[in-house]
């Protein structure tokens, strides 16, 4: 694999081609176009973004630990992508709706999903952790790219409802190769759907470098679908906030979809089942550590005269509390009753499921008491 394959988007060589408001050293870079979008973001607000990122990083680490300890079946770490996720989710209004993949822990958390809901799927007690309507976050998607169409359909509905809310679809660099994502671009563009396509280009799709998916910057994919495509430093939370706000505003105005490519990096393995040492080297990881989204924001805050030592301490405590809560929620999850396996296959009564359920109930009864509290939560 040559360098150009690995880095076809040219990130390392052309940092200037993306929106950046805070550089790697934590220095604020002024930008006439994007500064206005974050004019309200003062030191206190930056502090809150910092806090968000630290907490989700800590939650993520706890998820990894829980998996390593056998308490979770799997965990897909977000480490490295905190700014991309927090910057974008914090740009949303409460009535906007997010459609995510499996990696957007920060999105679910920021939308108020309880600790328990963040782990159920990975503990295997349920295939979803929350009510989508309550948090305006869809059930996370494992089929790569499928949610881009769901977000688009939802946004078409918003438009037909004359709502000024928007939808946002999160997906990865790998997902841009799936037909579904490209079809989502087509539908969104045709129907001027108020949807923001938020692509976290974390450089890898499991073992495949982004250069295998595209020899072109992913943001440029938008042009051919008559959408604006914006490339942003995904490790700069302020820049991500700015571009996402801009794209959302465009959606609310009725001007249709946008594509954001947040250039970031997955610092950990694809999931806890993955071994990245098989396909990428330490030097790459080290280079990206230099661009750490959290360290950079802390440096900015320090430059603004904030008491960063105090902030760090206080935030670390909050993060530890959140992690402890996550652990407690995880360990407190009870296995679902056997017969709940038949719950919710259909919304309406179904003779076939009812019969299989009844049969299985009789079968369990053969084993006596074991089966006693095996009833599910209803149909």
């Amino acid at each position: 694999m040559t360098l150009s394959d690995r880095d076809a988007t040219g990130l390392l060589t052309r940092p200037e081609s993306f929106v950046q408001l805070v550089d790697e050293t934590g220095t604020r870079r002024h930008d006439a176009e994007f500064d206005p979008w974050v004019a309200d973001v003062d030191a206190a607000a930056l502090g809150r973004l910092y806090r968000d990122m630290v907490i989700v990083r800590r939650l993520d680490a706890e998820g990894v630990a829980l998996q390593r300890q056998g308490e979770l079946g799997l965990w897909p770490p977000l480490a490295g992508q905190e700014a991309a996720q927090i910057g974008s989710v914090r740009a949303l209004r409460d009535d906007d709706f997010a459609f995510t993949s499996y990696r957007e822990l920060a999105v679910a958390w920021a939308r108020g999903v309880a600790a328990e809901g963040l782990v159920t799927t990975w503990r295997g007690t349920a295939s979803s952790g929350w009510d989508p309507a309550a948090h305006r976050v869809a059930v996370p998607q494992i089929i790569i790219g499928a949610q881009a169409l769901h977000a688009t359909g939802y946004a078409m509905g918003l438009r037909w409802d004359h709502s000024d809310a928007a939808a946002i679809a999160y997906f990865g660099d790998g997902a841009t190769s799936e037909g579904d994502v490209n079809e989502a671009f087509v539908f969104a563009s045709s129907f001027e759907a108020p949807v923001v396509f938020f692509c976290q280009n974390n450089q890898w799709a499991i073992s495949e470098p982004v250069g295998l998916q595209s020899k072109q910057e992913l943001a440029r994919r938008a042009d051919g679908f008559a959408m604006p495509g914006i490339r942003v430093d995904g490790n700069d939370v302020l820049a991500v906030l700015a571009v996402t706000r801009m794209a959302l505003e465009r959606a609310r105005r009725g001007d249709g979809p946008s594509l954001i490519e947040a250039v970031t990096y997955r610092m950990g393995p694809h999931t806890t089942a993955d071994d990245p040492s098989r396909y990428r080297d330490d030097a790459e990881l080290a280079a990206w550590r230099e661009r750490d989204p959290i360290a950079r924001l802390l440096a900015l805050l320090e430059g603004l005269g904030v008491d960063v030592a105090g902030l760090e301490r206080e935030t670390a405590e909050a993060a530890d509390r959140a992690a402890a809560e996550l652990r407690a929620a995880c360990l407190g999850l009870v296995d679902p009753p056997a017969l709940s396996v038949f719950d919710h296959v259909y919304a309406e009564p179904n003779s076939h499921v009812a019969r299989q359920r009844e049969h299985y109930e009789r079968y369990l009864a053969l084993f006596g008491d074991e089966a006693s509290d095996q009833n599910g939560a209803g149909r």
Partner: protein
Amino acid sequence: MTTLTLGKALNRGLRNALAADDRVVLMGEDIGTLGGVFRITDGLQAEFGRERVVDSPLSEAGLIGTAVGLAYRGFRPVVEIQFDGFIYPGFDQIVAQVAKLHYRSRGAVKVPITIRVPFGGGIGAAEHHSESPEAYFAHTAGLRVVVCSNPADAHVMIQQAIASDDPVLFFEPKRRYHVKGEVDEAASLADAKPMGIATVVAPGDDVTLVTYGALVQTAKDAAVAAAEDGVSLEVIDLRSLAPVDYPTLEASLRRTGRLVIAHEAGQQGGVGAEIAASLTERCFDYLEHAPVRVTGHDIPYPPAKLEQHHLPDLDRILDGVDRVLGRANSLSGVEA
């Protein structure tokens, strides 16, 4: 009562559904200005507007996938797949999303999507225009699969499918779009027979003949022909393929002891296999003969000039009846 073609009955049913609930939206390729290649949605865009009857870009995954998003938003999308053979690009969204979302979300997200599929052969069409893909969906937990066979059922069942909170694959026997029948447009939906219940369309005592879609008429013709021959066929229109109305089938089979199942789809793993296996399980002691299947061959749909050698027709169904009765038939003398 009005006399309507099956196609027009669907059109009126869709119109009722659009009028009854403003969350109902129709989506598909060419369904708006053109009214669909079969004109099933004729006039509906003019009446309900471009945001209720939506011409979509040319993409089946896109159609189904955006319908899922619309369901999240509380809509009841009705998607038209232009021809049976074009449903496969949408297969992933149907099987991995539409079928599973209610389960996956523990009941939090309802998926009241209706997917209309003109299906079946016998119209002399080119490749991919005559397929019978229903078994794929009947094998997919989370979906309901129904098939209408006449104008009256079409009119009611399409409204029931749209009103259902479950996703429904709605198969329409395209070669019977132009056949007329009586439809009671004024009848209330509340009193209508549920779409999950089968209909005994011709009573009989000797053989239970089960089918659905376009072959229901052929089966009725077979009953007439068999009667002349002294054999009494009970013809059952399944209407629902998932779930199957076994009580109705069992009641018949326990009387006749002989079962013939006919469908255009191939035999291997077709809907007939499930029904034969299930009814054998449920009625073994009543069976006088193994259930007989009369189906399309297990071949890709053949060119038009050969389709009469692929599709079950009157003679092939009667041969099946002969087989189940142990009379001289195409397999006589062959080890079963």
